[in-house]
């Protein structure tokens, strides 16, 4: 199944996503698509720790902070994939060291569409950052809007859409078969 998961931070999205990806593994390979770019030594250590944890769960880590469509043709179509997260992917695609691509989502959506077309067993995680009263600068607001665009495109293509709130699950679309 193609499964989209969103919700607040530290609410249990990644834990659920890992369980679902493991349960969808047919034996053709279990892949964790890492999207974070470390910004300091703390990050490097945290990423190494998470990676070791996942290896214990049987995941192979693929580093793809940008250009997610590079997954295509390299990995088996019947593998089980976990992409965590669209939040980081959108950030990396939009904010480069030397420029900001305000229209990055227009490039990213077709890439994600192709990835979802190719891989049937995939879990994609994002973050719900849309219900606060904070007023952001124009670029941050553009980032929120862009992430929402890719969330909605992915959710539309997924079989199942789940909201996680403090480990509680709401299924907004499809069914959750575990």
């Amino acid at each position, binding site marked *: 199944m193609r499964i989209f998961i969103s919700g607040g931070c530290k609410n249990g999205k990644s834990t659920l996503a890992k369980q679902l990806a493991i349960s969808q593994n047919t034996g053709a390979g279990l892949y964790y698509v890492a999207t974070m770019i470390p910004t300091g030594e703390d990050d490097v250590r945290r990423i190494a720790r998470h990676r070791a944890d996942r290896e214990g769960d049987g995941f192979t880590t693929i580093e793809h902070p940008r250009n997610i469509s590079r997954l295509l043709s390299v990995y088996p179509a019947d593998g089980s994939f976990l992409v965590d997260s669209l939040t980081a992917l959108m950030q990396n695609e939009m904010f480069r060291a030397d420029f900001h691509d305000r229209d990055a989502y227009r490039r990213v959506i077709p890439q994600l569409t192709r990835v979802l077309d190719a891989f049937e067993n995939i879990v994609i995680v994002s973050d719900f950052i*849309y219900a606060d009263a904070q007023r952001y600068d124009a670029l941050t607001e553009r980032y929120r809007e862009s992430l929402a665009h890719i969330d909605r495109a992915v959710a539309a293509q997924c079989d199942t*859409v789940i909201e996680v709130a403090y480990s509680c699950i709401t299924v907004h679309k499809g069914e959750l078969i575990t």
Partner: protein
Amino acid sequence: MKLIIGGAYQGKLDYALSRFELHKSDVYSCKETTMTIHTKKPIIYGFDQWILALVRAEFNVQTEVDKLLPKLADKIIISTDISAGVVPLDSIIRAWREEVGRATVKLAQNADEVVRLFVGIPTRLK
């Protein structure tokens, strides 16, 4: 009254236009300077923005909401949920957030249907 809520960019307006077979010309859009909502068009968009205008102008928000309610019986109201973040430092934004909460509860209590959008997907709450 139909009330459509959800976070920013979740597809509230797209949903309303598609479900009720309406067009952008059927939408009255509130800005953060809108002091009076005109109720000629079937969809009233940005209810939360109107509340911000009232807060800034130091109106009694709930009195204004009560006055408006009878005119909303056959309307589709769209409001953005701003209730789920950290308490804002700015006192105006803090008051806005609370007044939108109170006002949206009133709308929901008076609505025959409340729909929440989440990544483009509607869920009927009432």
